[in-house]
């Protein structure tokens, strides 16, 4: 990965390296920060800057299935807000909370770039378009059971 940046610009690899590492490890651990800093030739505090700046980089692990529901303008107009409330009630979780068994976590997100198919949500890297309340229930049930099929993986 480092080779894809021009010489002397290895610092640019910090964010992608963190993302890939997070997908594998589940969250950004202090050891990970040290390792990324070492590989990119920067100070650990400079990696820490990125981790705390970007909301998609997280220091605590999320659920196995991270359900991100958009409540930005297009989804809001098409029932995104209702989906969010329903998901909270169904799971008993709130924003950025993880279920006790570690299977599901919820996050209310800003635009995920699927406005044409609003309301939309994302389970890990998978998009769910034109989500109805019934479809939401199915998704959540599958996630809780652990048999949600991830196509993007």
């Amino acid at each position, binding site marked *: 990965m480092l080779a894809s940046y021009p010489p002397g610009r290895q610092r640019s690899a910090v964010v992608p390296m963190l993302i890939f590492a997070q997908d594998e490890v589940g969250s950004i651990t202090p050891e990970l920060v040290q390792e990324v800093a070492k590989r990119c030739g*920067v*100070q*650990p*505090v*400079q990696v*820490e*800057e990125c981790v*705390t*700046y970007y909301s998609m980089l997280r220091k605590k692990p999320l659920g196995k299935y991270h359900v991100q529901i958009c409540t930005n303008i297009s989804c809001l107009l098409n029932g995104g807000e209702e989906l969010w409330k329903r998901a909270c009630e169904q799971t008993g979780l709130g924003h950025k909370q993880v279920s006790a068994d570690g299977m599901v976590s919820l996050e209310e997100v800003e635009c995920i770039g699927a406005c044409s198919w609003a309301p939309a949500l994302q389970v890990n890297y998978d998009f769910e378009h034109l989500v109805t309340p019934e479809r939401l229930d199915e998704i959540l049930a599958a996630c809780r059971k652990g048999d949600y099929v991830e196509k993007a993986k």
Partner: protein
Amino acid sequence: MANLVKFTIDGRELEAAPGTLVIDAAKRAGIEIPAFCYYEGLSLQGACRMCMVEVERMPKLQTACTLPVAEGMVVRTDTPQVAQARKGTLEFLLTNHPLDCPVCDKGGECELQDMVFRYGAGESRFTEIKHHVDEKQWSPVVYFDAPRCILCYRCVRVCDEGMGVGALGVVNRGVVAEIAPNHGDHLECDECGMCIDICPVGALTSGAYRYKTRPWEMEHVGTICTHCSNGCRTTLGVRNNQIIRGNNRDSSGINGEFLCIKGRYAFDFYDHPDRLQAPLMKVNGKLEPVSWSQALAAVARKFSDVKARGGNFGVIGSNRTTNEENFYLQKFARQVLGTNNLDHRRSGDIVSLLDALHGQQTALATTADLYQAKAVVVISADLALEHPLLSWQIRANWRHHAAHVYVVTTEPVREDKYSVNAARCAPGQELETLQALRPQLVDEPELIFVFGDTIKGEKVRKLVEFGASLGKPVKYVCLVDYANSRGAMDMGLTPELLPGYRASGMPGLTIAEMLAAEDLDVLWVVGANPLAGASLAARGAFVVVQDLFLTETAQAADVVFPACSAYEKNGTVTNVTGEVQRLKRAVQAMGTKPDLEIIGLLAREMGEAAQLGPWSADKVFAEIRATVPGYNVPLPVILTGGAAQTSPVNGRVEAPARPELIRSARNGLFSSGTLGRYSNVLHSVLEGRRQP
């Protein structure tokens, strides 16, 4: 020189080199563009939005700190729109900034305060409660008050770029963004305090200075740091005869804004409770306080007696005392005592270097040269720790001019990170490793070799031969330890050399020989501690010591004179690059006298004052300028606080170099010989405590 660019600022037609930033061009023309994040020498940030200017044919206001001048550019800094932008920016900066100026350390010299006064609104439209975070202590010397921070990133950049440490970062974002130290809740770094000095507001404050005084209540005395040999100018803030802080607030001197922990904080030894305040004399085997006249009379009597019966004297000088004191001491020893047993602790082989160069006028590099040279080779020294200013200069040279840095050391050093070639060598194999770099070095248009104490004697000659064989302009820096190590050598504090490296032609004992001489009658030690880890063979010798503290040597003395520290006297010192600078007295310490005066009073007591001449620093310096080769430095430069390099010896040095006596103490950032033991700050920081 490329063609100058023509442009207009506020209706004035100006010219500047291509690439000049609008903010710099305006400053040069006397037009102030306010800014926080912009700091000359650091990378551009464009974070504070304070330097907005109107540029014709550009739709929006531009940040003058990131905008290079262009041909025909028309800039206005005095329009209502610009004034409105500045006002708005300040209003935003003050959203969460507490208005605690009356208790803030920065009050009175705060850039935010000044700017709000000048460009800000009278009142804020925000009625919301300010976001508050409690103050944090990151180290004994660094405190951080997040709400005061305006996120200009100056501290982050000076630590990363200037110091090469990178101990600070900015975590989180938006309103909760704040500066964070590298170890979560505390800092592990050089503890240099550059971040505090560079902070435009009172967000970073100094543990040594906070809540002690207001800046306008202090007198600011520019003098030279007494610790390492780099000779940084430190401006001491003095109130009621107390040094309250050290910084270099006016960026004067060879170091600009730079200071390390020693220059900024380690002045604190001067009022250590162990400081001697009265002469001590051994009565019944115990040192008792006596009056100055008693002590002087006793020593003068002893000196006269021993001299009259042709006894043996040994005189050991210091590498922290001034040139005047060293010159006067050697004159006293040679003319009054008639002895050539005169030495000081040597830490670099400047003699071999001067001899090998025999008088090449341009072969000794200055501190400024290290910032300008196209290539620098660091041999056998951990510059960042041992010679922080030289390291800062080289780092700045690399950053600003893309200088090529080469490293030849046994261990990894900080310079490795930005060097073009960091070569590791086995101990003693420096020159062989250097040979391997030859293909690269020969392509450099010019070079500076900076070498430590393991390059001595023949090796210095070989290095100079190697330098000459490259066929390029080459300069050298011979590293030495303390504030006036170089000056002690220049002033002839050795048996074999008179001031100005003229051979004495007389035999004399070195320190080790004096300590080992069983027939020594008098040992006179001025500001040194030779008996630390050593003993005196001559049991009956009369030992006279001039020092600040009761060191191992002073404890063994028959008479101890309490001496002034460098911050309590006037005089000159010569730094590692041979640049002479003036000390200026900042405070007076009760009961002490400058070493020069003590030596002078001894001469008077012995009735020999007439042949030594007056013992005022100015008079002795005038004599040094007149009689010591190389020291005819321009007086106006010295008197106005400048640095003037001494010219190298014209010709060979007709005396042995004695490389076997050369050994550097290798003091790092948190130690400073005997003096360092009495600095509480150096021991309070984590890094200082960790040192062996």
